[in-house]
C-alpha cells in the first residue's frame, strides 16, 4: 500500500476522520468504511449513475471520485435524505408515483433528482428527462420516474439537500 492519507469527511451530517489508501474510491469508502450500502455500484464505468451521491450538494458518480478528492467535503447518501421518519419529498414522490420496480437504480436516481431540482426548481418534463441522463434504469422505462420528479418539484417547500 502506498502512503495512506488522512481525510475528514462529513457524511450525512456526521464528521469522520480516516486514514485511507489514495486509490480508495468514494463509493467503496461509503459502502465499506462507513457501512452505508444504500449507494449501489451498477457499472463501475461512470455510466449508470447507481452510485450517485451528493458531494457538497451536487450529484457526482462516487465510483469515479477518489475518497481523497472528497476530503473536507460533505457527502449526502440516500441514507441521509430523510429527516427522522419523514421521507424527503423526492423519496415520497418516488413511492407515491411508483418511480421504481427492482429498486437498484433508485438511490442514485433519487440523489440525481435532488441535485437536479436544486438547480432547476421549476423544470419542464423535457428538462427532467435531460437532467437524469446520467442515470440508467433497466425496469421502469423512466415514465414514472419523470412523473415522480415533476411531482416532487411541485411539493411546497421541498427541502433541497
Amino acid at each position, binding site marked *: 500500500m502506498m502512503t495512506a492519507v488522512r481525510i475528514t469527511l462529513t457524511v450525512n451530517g456526521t464528521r469522520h476522520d480516516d486514514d485511507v489508501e489514495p*486509490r480508495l474510491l468514494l463509493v467503496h469508502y461509503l459502502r465499506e468504511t462507513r457501512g452505508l450500502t444504500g449507494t449501489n455500484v451498477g457499472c463501475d464505468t461512470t455510466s449508470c*449513475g447507481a452510485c450517485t451521491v451528493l458531494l457538497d450538494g451536487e*450529484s457526482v458518480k462516487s465510483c469515479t*471520485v477518489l475518497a*481523497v478528492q472528497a476530503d473536507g467535503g460533505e457527502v449526502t447518501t440516500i441514507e441521509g435524505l430523510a429527516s427522522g421518519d419523514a421521507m424527503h419529498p423526492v423519496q415520497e414522490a418516488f413511492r407515491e408515483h411508483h418511480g421504481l420496480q427492482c429498486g437498484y437504480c433508485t438511490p442514485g436516481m433519487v440523489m440525481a433528482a435532488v441535485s437536479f431540482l436544486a438547480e432547476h426548481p421549476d423544470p419542464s418534463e423535457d428538462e427532467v428527462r435531460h437532467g437524469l441522463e446520467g442515470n440508467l434504469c433497466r425496469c421502469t422505462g423512466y415514465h414514472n420516474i419523470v412523473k415522480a420528479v415533476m411531482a416532487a418539484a411541485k411539493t411546497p417547500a421541498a427541502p433541497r439537500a
Partner: protein
Amino acid sequence: MIPSAFDYVRAASVDEALAQLAEHGDEAKLLAGGHSLLPLMKLRLAAPTVLIDIGRLRDLSYVRDGGNHVAVGALTRHRDVEVSDLLRAEVPLLAHTAGLVGDPQVRHRGTIGGSVAHGDPASDLPAVVLALGGTLVARGPGGEREIAAGEFFHGFLETALAPDEMLTEIRLPKRPGAGWSYQKFNRRAQDWAIVGVAAVRNGGAGVALVNMGSTPLRATAVEQALASGASPADAAAHAAEGTEPPDDLNGSADYRRHLVQVLVRRALEEAGARG
C-alpha cells in the same frame, strides 16, 4: 475496478504543482476533475505512480472579461462554464456545448482544462476552442507561454503541452454578432459524439470536427469553400476532406464521412440563421 496503487500529493498553488511535476517526472499525472483520468486508471490503461491533485486550485476556476476575449481558468468545471452569464453572452457556443458534455454528474466534476489537455478527438470542448480560434495559456518551469488552438493538438491524446507544463487558462476571442452552432450526433444521451461539428460564422467561418481523426480537426476545406462564396450545402460537401475517421461499433469510417457532411451543413445553416 480499482486503479493500481499510487501516491497522492495535493498542490496548493500552480508553482507547487509545477515543482511536483518536476520532482516526479514521467511517473506523475495531474488530476483535475478526474473524469477522463480515473476511468482510464480503473481500466488500468493508465497507471501513474503519483497523482498531483490540482482540483483544489479554486483560483484557477473563473470566467473573466479580457477585453477582446473571455478568459476561462483551466479548473473551471463544465457546469460553471455552462451557466456563466459572461460566456452565454460573449461566447455562447462554448457555454451551450459545455452543457452537452456527458451528463450532469460528469459536468459537476470535469474541467475545461482537463478536457483540452486530454486532447481526446471525441471530446466536445477541444473542437469548440479550435473553431473559435482560442488560445491556450500554459505554465512551466520557464514561465508562461501562449499556444494557438490550431497548434495545440498534435496526435491521439497528445498536445503541445510539455510533461512539466500545466494548462492554466483558455482564451476565447469575442466575436460579437457571430452565428454559431454545435451539432452533436450520438445514440445515447450521455455518450460522446459519434461525430460532432462546432461552427462559428461572422464574415469568416470557423468549423471544427469531433471524432473525425486522431485529433480534433479544423475543417479547412469547408472554411475555404465558404470564403470563396460557396453555399452552406456546397461547402459542407468538402467536410470529409483530409479526415481519417475511426471505424468502431458506433459507425464505420464511411458512415462518419457521410455523417460529417450532413452535420456541417446543419451547423452552417443554423449558424447562418443565428448570425
